[in-house]
């Protein structure tokens, strides 16, 4: 039952609560001016300028010159890849290159944000983060329901705090409320939800915290005590899973608060300290959490997580959106945020920041340099910028499209990936763009755009009753599985695929069949030069240079048929390193 002991509600001590889980001690999200029109172009412009100013300050301190803006070819490809997860078609690229209007870049950004592919692209990323534990289950649920639900939510641009609340408090069947799949997947091998796994994952994804250590012992670096961790986990102690009910009928429910079941969890035997201790659902830095009259334990947790006082919520999402655009976060690792240990920002963040100056020079051919002071816990590379983005996100009512529009409108995002000689070794001051490697979905979707027709079906095979244990995955899913080599949340600037993936691209029958794009070129009777230019525009969103063109023409002439010649050029295009990176 509800506790009747004297308790201290968070609001009874605003100062203390403001210090809770915040990096500095003032509350700001609530103070955001209300009623601001979303997508106000002036607002977008001024935020973009502030991004450029903050990045520029660091560059000038480090005496690094910034590269000029990307040309139109580089820009159109980058914008399509960043916002819709696929390369532009030839028509898209030609149309953009021929457009002479001064505002064509921001118009393209707006067009892409309104594309249905936008939602799919962001849903792909979050789907991976929210699932990916299917391996752990004997009979995993069909997570495509969740992918579709996320796609709709991102396309509708639902505010991020509302979306997260829906996930945290999800109830019903997988079919009715696909967000419930998150709970089924964060359970044991039979799908019984594990409160500690849910709390650790939610902390990581939505607050950028690394809580796993605190499951077993007090976390020395992050000021998390083990009891605090289990206090958070206990908010998920009443979540029930129906067990396998056959596909989408499986459900998640939370036992209501009126029930006599205790809102506590016992610290399990697998921990190192306090084994067996009963821990009540308790928000951090409170002696007790009053749940009287609240809807459910999870709703209390969701309010706390997404509430205006919890600055990590906005900072985490701002950092993840930035990482989406640049391949790496302002805070790395993405779950490197801390409570308590975080110092308030100094007056001049440039003066004593460990990463200022020329400490971070790395040979790009020999892997990433150290991304932080080795001896100290992670800290953001641009603390003021992170702050700015988090504020903007919260002030816009957690409008993801708005923040993306601001970032994509900035010169920082639009810079060329070609470094100037003096800035060659810069890897995180944003003097130039660092190329991002295609994830599996981006690669498949881009190959499909290039190919000119469906490459790999997403249709799952029917159950074969003679081999009922065969996994029912579509050819598309098999491709995604093969190319999924980057750990969750890792920097996307790293190439982690290898020989098996390249052999698939080189030799698989499907990519060596007759392609619709070449068939189209042959039907239209284009000459070799035009056909090669078309293929270059389709694959690399640019025209070949003179040497590339003459080499390709020579190649085509040397093959037995035009078909063989053009398919060969196509093959060399999708096997290029230029093809698999968003530069």
């Amino acid at each position, binding site marked *: 039952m509800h506790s009747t002991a004297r308790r201290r509600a968070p609001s009874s001590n605003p100062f203390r609560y403001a210090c809770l889980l915040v990096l500095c001690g003032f509350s700001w999200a609530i103070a955001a001016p209300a009623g601001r029109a979303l997508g106000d172009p002036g607002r977008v412009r001024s935020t973009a300028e502030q991004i450029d100013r903050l990045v520029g300050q660091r560059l000038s301190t480090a005496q690094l010159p910034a590269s000029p803006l990307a040309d139109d070819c580089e820009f159109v490809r980058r914008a399509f890849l960043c916002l819709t997860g696929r390369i532009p078609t030839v028509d898209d690229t030609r149309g953009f290159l021929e457009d002479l209007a001064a505002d064509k870049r921001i118009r393209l950004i707006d067009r892409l944000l309104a594309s249905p592919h936008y939602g799919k692209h962001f849903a792909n990323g979050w789907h991976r983060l929210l699932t990916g534990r299917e391996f752990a289950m004997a009979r995993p649920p069909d997570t495509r329901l969740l992918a579709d639900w996320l796609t709709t939510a991102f396309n509708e641009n639902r505010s991020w705090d509302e979306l997260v609340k829906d996930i945290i408090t999800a109830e019903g069947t997988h079919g009715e409320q696909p967000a419930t799949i998150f709970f089924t997947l964060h359970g044991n091998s039979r799908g019984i939800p594990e409160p500690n796994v849910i709390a650790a994952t939610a902390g990581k994804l939505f607050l950028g915290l690394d809580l796993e250590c605190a499951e077993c012992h007090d976390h020395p670096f992050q000021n998390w005590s083990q009891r605090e961790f289990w206090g958070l986990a206990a908010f998920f102690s009443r979540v029930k899973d129906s067990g396998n009910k056959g596909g989408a009928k499986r459900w998640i429910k939370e036992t209501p608060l009126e029930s006599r079941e205790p809102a506590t969890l016992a610290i399990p035997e*697998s921990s190192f300290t306090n084994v067996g201790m009963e821990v009540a659902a308790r928000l951090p830095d409170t002696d007790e959490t009053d749940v009287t009259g609240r809807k459910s334990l999870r709703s209390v947790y969701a309010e706390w997580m997404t509430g205006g006082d919890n600055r990590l919520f906005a900072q985490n999402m701002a950092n993840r959106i930035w990482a989406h655009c640049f391949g790496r976060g302002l805070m790395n690792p993405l779950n490197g945020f801390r409570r308590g240990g975080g110092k308030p920002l100094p007056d001049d963040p440039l003066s004593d920041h460990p990463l200022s100056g020329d400490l971070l020079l790395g040979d*790009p051919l020999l892997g990433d*340099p150290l991304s932080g002071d080795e001896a100290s816990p992670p800290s953001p590379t641009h603390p003021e910028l992170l702050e700015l983005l988090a504020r903007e996100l919260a002030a816009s009512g957690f409008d993801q499209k708005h923040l993306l529009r601001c970032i994509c409108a900035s010169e920082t995002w639009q810079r060329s990936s070609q470094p100037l000689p003096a800035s060659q070794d810069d890897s995180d001051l944003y003097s130039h763009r660092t190329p991002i490697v295609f994830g599996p979905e981006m690669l498949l979707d881009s190959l499909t755009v290039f190919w000119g027709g469906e490459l790999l079906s997403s249709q799952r095979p029917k159950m074969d009753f003679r081999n009922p244990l065969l996994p029912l995955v579509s050819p598309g899913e098999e491709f995604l599985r093969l190319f999924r*080599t980057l750990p969750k949340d890792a920097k996307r600037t790293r*190439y982690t695929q290898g020989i098996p993936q390249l052999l698939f691209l080189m030799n698989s029958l499907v990519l060596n069949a007759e392609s619709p794009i070449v068939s189209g070129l042959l039907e239209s009777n284009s000459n070799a030069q035009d056909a090669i230019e078309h293929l270059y525009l389709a694959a690399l969103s640019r025209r070949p240079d003179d040497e590339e063109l003459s080499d390709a023409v020579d190649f085509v002439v040397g093959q037995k048929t035009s078909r063989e010649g053009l398919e*060969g050029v196509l093959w*060399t295009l999708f096997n*290029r*390193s230029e093809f698999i990176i968003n530069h």
Partner: protein
Amino acid sequence: MKFDSRRKLLRLAAAAVPAAGISGWFHKLAKTARAETTDGQQRDLSCILLWMNGGPSQQHTFDPKPGGAYKAISTAIPGIQVCDCLPRVAQNMQDFAILRSMSTAEIEHERACFLLQTSYQQIGGAEYPPLGSVVSAEVGSSDAFLPNYVAIDAGRDGRYIGTYRPGPAYLGPRHAPLIVDDPAKGVENLKPAVDPRQLADRAKLLAKAERAFGQRLKSSAAFAHRTAFTQALRLMQSSQVRAFDLDSEPTSIRDAYGNNRFGRACLLARRLVEVGVSFVEVRHEGWDDHSGATPLVRGRCEYVDPAMAALVEDLKRRGRLENTLVIWMGEFGRAPGDGKNHWPNAWTAVLSGAGLKTGQTIGRTDKKDGGEVVDRPISEIDFMATVCQALGIDPAKKYVTGGGRPVTLVDYQRADPNPVAELF
């Protein structure tokens, strides 16, 4: 400009390394460890790592305790006992050395994997190459047709904690592993889809464009892609890929290893080292027995024990054991009792081959429950230095990372290494 001159210095330094940096103790011991045969020929050394991901329970395998859940049995070496789930390994004890006093400092899976495979602590995003990349770079031939580092997925049997493997870091993408998802399938898509002349034309056209792109855009990702692409092309042209064809092995041999994924992975490992692959990782997932090790380890050992024994017997019979270091280990052990917890304080790793003095145990844990080391603790640094010595690698070799930091292959900053001299 200050900035420029610093870069220049670093480039000079980078050009000068890797320079030999042999520390005193290494000199002394190097003679015994040097990878040379009697006639002075360089031995082609290799290493097979049987990695039990999740942390195998030592008291259910190689460090039995009185009153433990599993009975102790005698082995081919009088006085050495192991758990009764390892009868085949016990018969071959003369070829194994049991290190019972592993004592390491990291208790969380990913961090412990990083620590045991690199000898460095995982802090602040600093990257260090794992043992596989080190062996690939230091022992492997630079013109091999097969990649020098192959990692085989030997399946899962128990709790899934995810595959974590550090990248090759400053050693570069050439020393990233070729990952084999299923030992029965080997590497797929090896056959070109077009005729060889066409493929050669395509590859030529591609190579020229790639060179130009590489000059235009300095990108580590693009560089890694090109490196792997070149390796893939070489692999396609290599007759050594026949190593992946396990069906060409006699039935009796396949049966000895076991007709299961782990057995096939061990057999593939042997075939790969025979064609010159310097490091093969056989990764078996599922040893994170939080519900207790007793009901689960025995079931796993039903196929791990015969495969491990068959691997060593087979290597010996074929004259390769002398040149091959076999390691059985996880990222830590498990707590006394039923092994529900991770336990880095006192655990076991097992070595075989490479001319080591086997048929012995090294180090001891306490008699009561084996929770603490009472004799000769072996840290991750000691362990890595031992492996390096067995493979003729200088663990003090210096490199400069992409960030311009000088580093040594084995972490000499934290502690002086104390390799297990009893093995040499």
